């Protein structure tokens, strides 16, 4: 009975928060409160026990990485990179997708891609506006950037929430994840960039493109004429960040100095370079809403875990009369679709529990990296599931892109679908391929 009630609360809450995003916080907090109450009533442990199960280290790691990204913003790193990338791309349709796609993949692998995207996307949107970009060009350029962000986030253990969760929970060490996930995501991003190039080549030869490209470069230089790198600050932040990466790589995952502690201490040393900014950033720029959202998810998932439902699901999966490799493939497909519908945060929080059980019967590294890749595939399926999707949609709407025919050019759920489907298939194929090869080798 407890399992039925608590699982129902989790599923209904996830569905409702996806259906009514403007009431999201009320819904998830109500769900978490309901879970605590039901769990206490059924004897599974109240809020004290459930809160003790929350992976606080993951939340700490997310906050510290967000603050570090914000410090790089203060050093003007992203603005300068964006303008340089625009020069490098020559403002051509294929050039923009390739240069910015690679840039966002690399940035997202190391930092909070949402912070970077807020500064990089306006530059891309200016180029698209000046070039009078067609609907196809806007869709594939912005879509490619979003998918590159997702793949970059999955490439390293500090890039995005699923990987951070794996690192924070000690499921995988920093290096183990990196050497397995990075090559796989590189293959996927290569596939996406090749497809985008083929699609965007049609926009390449339009009349007047050279003039428009020259004007957009000149305009960007003027609009960002004051964007100069704060060299001393960026140098200091880079040194601290490299030291943090070294600590994450070299320190044993099971040792006393955990990944979140490295992040905690590291970001405070980084912010010490600008105490006034550091104080202001901590006070005003940490998103309490996001912390509460994830906390509520962890509480609900923890309550369900205590009932043994996840073990049951995993047992059901592993008792299917098919080889283990097929069981894993079915699980990855399920993860991809569920993430596409409910987004990465909720699906990863819930499905990691199933993966943990699967990892007791199959090679853990294969299961976890496959899980992270499939979450990435699902995040790339729909605009609403992509981590930065609504942000990109919002910034594009504000830019008021108008095509040469005078019609509004949009970037919303419908427009993203072709990019999403191609990306989902490509990344899922890479995930399945990775797992099958991994199972064969282990």
């Amino acid at each position, binding site marked *: 009975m407890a399992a039925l009630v608590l699982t129902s609360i989790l599923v209904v809450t996830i569905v409702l928060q996806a259906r009514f995003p403007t009431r999201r916080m009320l819904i998830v907090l109500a769900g978490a409160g309901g879970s605590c109450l039901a769990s206490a009533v059924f004897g599974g442990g109240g809020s004290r026990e459930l809160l003790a199960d929350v992976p606080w280290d993951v939340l700490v790691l*997310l906050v510290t990485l967000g603050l570090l990204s914000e410090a790089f913003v203060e050093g003007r790193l992203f603005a300068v990179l964006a303008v340089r990338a625009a020069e490098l791309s020559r403002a051509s349709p294929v050039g923009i997708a390739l240069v910015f796609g690679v840039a966002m993949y690399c940035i997202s692998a190391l930092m909070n891609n949402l912070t970077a995207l807020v500064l990089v996307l306006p530059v891309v949107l200016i180029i698209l506006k000046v070039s009078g970009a067609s609907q196809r060009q806007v869709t594939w350029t912005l879509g490619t950037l979003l998918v590159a962000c997702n793949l970059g986030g999955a490439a390293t253990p500090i890039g995005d929430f699923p990987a*951070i969760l794996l690192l924070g929970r000690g499921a995988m060490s920093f290096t183990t994840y990196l050497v397995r996930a990075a090559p796989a995501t590189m293959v996927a991003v290569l596939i996406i960039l090749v497809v985008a190039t083929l699609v965007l080549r049609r926009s390449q030869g339009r009349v007047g493109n050279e003039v428009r490209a020259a*004007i957009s470069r000149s305009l960007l230089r003027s609009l960002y*004429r*004051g964007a100069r790198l704060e060299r001393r600050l960026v140098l200091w932040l880079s040194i601290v960040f490299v030291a943090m990466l070294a600590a994450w790589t070299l320190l044993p995952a099971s040792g006393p100095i955990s990944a979140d502690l490295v992040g905690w201490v590291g970001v405070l040393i980084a912010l010490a370079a600008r105490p006034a900014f550091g104080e202001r950033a901590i006070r005003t*720029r940490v998103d309490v809403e*996001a912390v509460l959202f994830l906390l509520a998810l962890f509480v609900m998932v923890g309550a369900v875990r205590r009932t043994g439902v996840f073990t049951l699901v995993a047992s059901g999966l592993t008792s299917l009369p098919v080889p283990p490799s097929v069981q894993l493939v079915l699980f990855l497909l399920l993860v991809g679709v569920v993430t596409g519908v409910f987004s990465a945060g909720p699906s990863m929080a819930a499905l990691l529990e199933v993966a943990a059980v699967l990892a007791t019967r199959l090679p853990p590294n294969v299961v976890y990296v496959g899980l992270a890749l499939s979450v990435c595939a699902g995040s790339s399926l729909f605009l609403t599931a992509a981590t930065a999707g*609504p942000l990109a949609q919002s910034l594009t709407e504000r830019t008021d892109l*108008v095509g040469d025919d005078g019609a509004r050019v949009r970037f919303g759920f419908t427009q993203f679908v072709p990019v999403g489907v191609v990306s989902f298939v490509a990344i899922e194929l890479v995930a399945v391929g990775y797992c099958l090869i991994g199972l064969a080798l282990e």
Partner: protein
Amino acid sequence: MSSSGRPASVRIRLLGAPSAPAPPASEVTIEERAIGRLGLGAAFELASAELGFVTASWLFVDEIARLSGEDGVASLRDELGPMFSVLDFVATEWLQGKRERSIRTDAIVQALTGTRRVLVVGLEAGHLDALGRVLDPATRIGLVAYRLQKVDWKRVIDNYRGRVELVDLASFQGWAGARSAIVTFVYGMRETRVNVLSAFLRVMGSDVRTQFRDIIGWSVLSGPPEIYPRYLVETLATELTDIIDETR
């Protein structure tokens, strides 16, 4: 605002957290549709909003001239000129032989001598950049964040690295005082009337006139536009205590 120009209330979106729902899609206006059909119209609209009409006009004319020569500039004038009168004026001047823009600041600095606060109404990036460089660093410069076109004010103000402060329409009177001046840009004068940006009319009221030591018009065009200046408004020259004109 922070030193980087970001509003203090901007918060970090954490990875894995939900993103705010996107706003409902806006419809394209008849004017935006018309500008969009003009090829570079939307681009000029964006450039003029954040750089000012004169600065944007010179940027477009210089770039087109470099790539397509006189024919290109003439085409630009014919295509965009009817919609953007300042661009028409600048392109015509270029075709008549004026190949470089010079921004002189001696007279404006002279006029602002003794002021401690200068409130700039309207945006001309080239002139504002120059003013920021030559004015006594002890003199604060404020920029009124009001424009009919859409402007990313954060991007605009980031270029000044704290030298110029953003001032909203509701609080600009905090800049008033016996050692304060208003500077606005003048886009040509015809008899007793001058062309200014509508922001100037939003700011100027009979109460405001007495709160500032000077209300200076800084001429940025050497004459009035031939074509009806649809993004500009006319006002009496007597609204200004001084007009600085070093464009010739």
